[in-house]
């Protein structure tokens, strides 16, 4: 599948399938289907989801600088914008459901903040093979699983309409993600290993790991708290491993093997890894918020279809 992708065709498809917030009637009936109990649980969940879109967005922004061809660079520019669009649409839903306090943009949880802060500071210096392996995992695991949850649990037709569009964008993101992983796997093993080692020896990488590890566990906890089966998150993790394994080239990526192995630990509740990961969730909750600056690009988020 992946290795046959024509990126020019994909770019054209992306351009042809553009949609805007103005295409959706955000005031249409259906908001009343959200019960007060669901409303209370959904509010922090949506705030996190909206910010997780920005994790993908910032990753794609970095990849747009690294991609080897102009077509791929352009694809990533669109993906960056589309992740922002998803965040904007999710904000518009929150607005529709009365979850926003005036014009204020909701705060994400500390673990999302840590990852965004990390990506904002360091992702531009990471190699494409590094980003191209980790970003798909975040996309599949977080975006994919959380969107699936929304589509299964929320009846509001406008929410369904919005997430149908978001889902369709995400499926193209994942198709490109895996096609690129396949492409990256064509590189010589020496190059792959050099990039791997180059990525790991950076001190900043440790900060990345320390942000990434608790994020996954935190999101798992959030999902469970909402009364959802955590298996949905795990199924998404398995998808990353399965799709990657199907390509003989993606399999060759050392980083893929590491991310895959790590995701195996995450979905095994009995694994001792969780002692560390859960501890990091607790520790990270005490990170002073003032250490994390809000990137200026986040000020562009808006629920208004027109500006």
């Amino acid at each position, binding site marked *: 599948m992946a290795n046959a992708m024509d990126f020019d065709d994909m770019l054209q498809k992306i351009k042809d399938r553009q949609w805007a917030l103005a295409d959706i009637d955000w005031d249409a009936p259906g908001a009343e289907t959200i019960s007060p109990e669901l409303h209370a649980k959904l509010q922090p969940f949506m705030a996190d989801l909206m910010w997780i879109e920005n994790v993908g967005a910032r990753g794609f922004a970095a990849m747009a600088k690294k991609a080897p061809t102009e077509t791929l660079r352009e694809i990533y520019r669109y993906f960056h914008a589309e992740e922002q669009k998803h965040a904007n*649409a999710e904000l518009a839903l929150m607005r529709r459901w009365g979850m926003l306090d005036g014009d204020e943009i909701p705060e994400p949880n500390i673990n999302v903040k840590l990852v965004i802060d990390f990506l904002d500071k360091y992702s531009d210096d990471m190699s494409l093979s590094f980003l191209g392996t980790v970003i798909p995992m975040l996309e599949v695991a977080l975006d994919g699983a959380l969107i699936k949850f929304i589509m299964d649990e929320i009846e509001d037709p406008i929410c369904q309409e919005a997430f149908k569009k978001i889902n369709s964008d995400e499926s193209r993101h994942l198709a490109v993600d895996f096609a690129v992983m396949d492409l990256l796997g064509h590189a010589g093993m020496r190059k792959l290993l050099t990039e791997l080692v180059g990525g790991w020896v950076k001190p900043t990488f440790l900060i990345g790991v320390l942000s990434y590890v608790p994020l996954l566990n935190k999101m798992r906890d959030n999902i469970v708290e909402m009364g959802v089966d955590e298996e949905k998150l795990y199924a998404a993790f398995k998808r990353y491993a399965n799709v990657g394994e199907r390509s003989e080239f993606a399999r060759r990526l050392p980083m893929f093997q590491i991310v895959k192995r790590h995701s195996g630990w995450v979905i095994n509740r009995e694994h001792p890894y969780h002692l560390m990961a859960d501890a990091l969730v607790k520790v990270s909750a005490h990170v002073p918020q003032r250490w994390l600056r809000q990137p200026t*690009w986040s000020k562009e988020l808006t629920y208004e279809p*027109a500006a």
Partner: protein
Amino acid sequence: MTKDLMNTQILDVAIIGGGFAGIGAAIRLKQKGIGDFAIFERGTSIGGTWRDNTYPGAACDIPSRLYSYGFAPNPNWSHTYSGSNEILGYIESMATQFGLHRHFRFGHNITGIVFDEDAGVWDISVEGRADIVRARTVVLASGPLANASLPKIPGIEDYQGHKIHSARWDHDYDFTGKKVAVVGTGASAVQIIPELVDKAASVKVFQRTPGWVLPRINRQTSPLTKELYRRVPAAESLSRAAWFYGHESVALGVVWNTPLTRVVEMVGRAQLRRQVKDPWLRRQLTPEFRAGCKRLLMTDDYYPALQRENCKLVTWPIARISERGIRTAEGIEHQADCIVFATGFEVSKAGTPIPIVGRDGRVLATEWQRGAFAYKSIAVSGYPNLFFTFGPNSGPGHNSALVYMEAQINYLVEAISTVLDRDLRMLDVRRERQDEYNAAIQRRLDSTTWNSGCRSWYLTEDGFNATMYPGFATQYVGQLRTVELGDYHVVPVTAERTAPRIVVNS
């Protein structure tokens, strides 16, 4: 050609285009004693690009001392870099000084030219006129930046607000209190944006790729300096030479991809760091290609304007244009009362500005469809007695276009006087000389910044560079110093068809 047309008066020279190049060619022809020429201008006044580009802030980014003809010095330039009004004034003053107005045929839009090989004459068709103009030689001075180009964005026709192209400015439109969108961030845009930010309620700048921005120090010329240049022309020549060699040295970093290119980039980065404090905005404005690959932008006003309260840079890809504004890929419709398209020109890198039919019915647009080529950018084999100004591969990246143009004009005037003095039916460049020349040009282009990987208006869709000259201005001027007749088939009027027919390879 029908017999009755044979009686039509035949001009010695037809100049197509009344801009800088056309006027320069006319002056040099006159100075050479050739007076039987006409300048065909589709507009109603002279000036070409400088007549058309009157947007607020329009100026030249080459110093005026150098952006003028050596044979028509102007001691009165008011600043180091002149605005479009002053440049247009210079062009008009040249036309007056050299008595060119009577040679102008305004409202003459040339729709095609065909070479009559038996007569050695070009037949020139004019839009809306049945009669054909005939000329022994033709100077195609239509210029690369003549046709304004609107970008191919879906929905552009649906937009209900006001549309303005930078090269066709609407001076009646009042921007006061308006929401304005500017599409493009090239050489024109960076001049327009600071002016608009001063007037409009809000300005949104839609950027596709950021360019390298270098400082531009624009000083007023003191009355004393002007007086000196008036009284001592040698002083002005010296100043011009200093600017020329200053720019020539820049070629080492701008034309070729060398360690000096890094120095140019360092200057650009320093300008960005100095003028833009926000790291994300700085990231958005940092170019991702080598300096020189696209035209360098020279301005001190652009970055500060972008950071004004009422201005915003939008870097999301444009998805489409709607009735009320521009929809970008982050899903927002950016509504505007007016969209300014600073999106450049349709540059003929392939095809020709007008249909040109040469010897044996060959069509130049067909030969050029995969990229234009010529001999020394001036003549094309199979199209005798026809000379281009600003033809293929004559663009400078580091020096004044006028220096290149002056060399072309001197060359083609010598060629034309050869045709007339020797009563030639054809002066047709030899195909093999042309091919050798172009093979060398393309080889040399490989190591230039323009061919270093970015997409620019210098390149065709296939990445062929038919636009730029890969060398110093000194080299370009040097190769045009004399017309080597050995490079041409020289066919007198009296001779039978002696030059070999050439099969068109397209």
